[in-house]
């Protein structure tokens, strides 16, 4: 399955590096990545493929959330289909 990982918070050195390394360690492929500043917040989005992931989704979510906390940002993971449903007719 494809999911979208979103990181929101204050910009600082190493956010992309840490999140990418985390995903690589679990065989989660990054298919697309983009970042921007929206209403004063740093927002990074990644489309990832979890098909070959070595850990199950709930573990990945919990660990990513903890990683986010350690960097002072909030990280969420949602199924790509949720975004398609809302924004594409």
């Amino acid at each position: 399955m494809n999911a979208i990982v979103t990181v929101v918070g204050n910009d600082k050195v190493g956010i992309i590096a840490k999140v990418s390394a985390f995903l690589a360690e679990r065989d989660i492929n990054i298919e697309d990545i983009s970042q921007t500043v929206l209403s004063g917040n740093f927002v990074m989005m990644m489309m990832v493929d979890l098909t070959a992931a070595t850990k199950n989704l709930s573990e990945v979510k919990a660990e990513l959330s903890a990683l986010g906390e350690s960097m002072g940002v909030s990280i969420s993971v949602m199924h790509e289909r949720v975004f398609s449903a809302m924004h594409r007719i």
Partner: protein
Amino acid sequence: MLFTPFEIKETVDMFLRNKLDIRAITLGVSLLDCSRASGKESRSMIREKLLRVAGPLVKVGRDIENEYGIPIINKRVSVTPIALVAAASDDVDYAPWAATLDGVAKELGIDFVGGFSALVQKGMTTSDQRLIDSIPRALALTDRVCASVNVASTKSGINMDAVREMGRIVKEAAALTADLDGLGCAKLVVFCNAPEDNPFMAGAFHGPGEGDATLNVGVSGPGVVKAALEAYRGASFDEVADAIKKTAFKITRMGQLVGMEAARRLGVPFGILDLSLAPTPEVGDSVARILEELGLESAGTHGTTAALALLTDMVKKGGVMASTHVGGLSGAFIPVSEDEGMVAAVRAGSLTLDKLEAMTCVCSVGLDMIALPGDTSASTIAAIIADEMAIGMVNNKTTAVRVIPVPGKKAGDWAEFGGLLGGAPILATHAFSSDAFIARGGRIPAPIHSFRN
């Protein structure tokens, strides 16, 4: 990137900041095939059938929550009105039927079971009468069973004998749960034009026109609408209406996605999506605050009915395009105790019982979760029900009454029901009697515009 940063942030914010969730996935199950001459045998068949058909419901719900990142607050079951299923049986007391439903719900981790119900808009069978008489004890005896009685419809008129009965039953249900502020009444709703596919409690039941099993979904999302409107302060109603419509579309699409997926995994047809904006007692999840965002100082003041009419209609227009089948109640709920903003409005003195009644002419349900003084008479409650049924009957819409005469408490006191049901200050009723009006009995005929054949 497949989606723009704005789109992604908008969706993530809906869930993380504005409390968007699926309020309920409700599996409707027909129990018509469980009808037997022996009540005991019938109840054991019901148990077996529900364990089999609804067994995977909670797991399916949790799996979807986990995979999609969408919270599903309640997993519920609705069943064929028990008055129909039990009609062939030798039972006189139907409370054990409620106990069976409650037992299955607890065993499977299901939050609520709806369908301890009777449809008596035109007349009452012996079985309907037995069910109605059993309601107060059934609700006191169980935790997760919800009861509903349809006493009126646009086609049939208002069954005033049943309305009088329900005034009495509401009082009894409160008395039997007096130590819990009359909690039994929070699980009992009286309907006009009850929908057969409603996923929301306490009024959910699996109508006799439905198939074997079907999956219905109810979304939430008042916080999302409120947040969207914050960007439109001072804008004209044309712009505001459009903003609500777009937001409703997005919320509904999410509900449709979850509903289709849950139905597929359970191997049952997807029934309907209920568009209603269902509030919770939490801050940031209130329908009243949307009305205030539209420019009213406090919900209930002049302009509230117009604001609610706009909100309800735009939610429907946005939602209808987003789902294959829309049904249930679909509009905006205005339950007092379940909505932090409504509670604040009652406290501020801007929201009264009479204004709530006016609001029900344009919202999707009716007088919902309203705490009344404990000494409110059965005939006054019946008269409140009659008024609300008349609004539904004449306007061709669903209306309902779920009021709680809180034992031992008076207007202004606080009543607490807990959890999603919340708590509310007790609203005053009129002091004048409706006794002679309710004592008449009989039927109020259907309105002239119901003859459309």
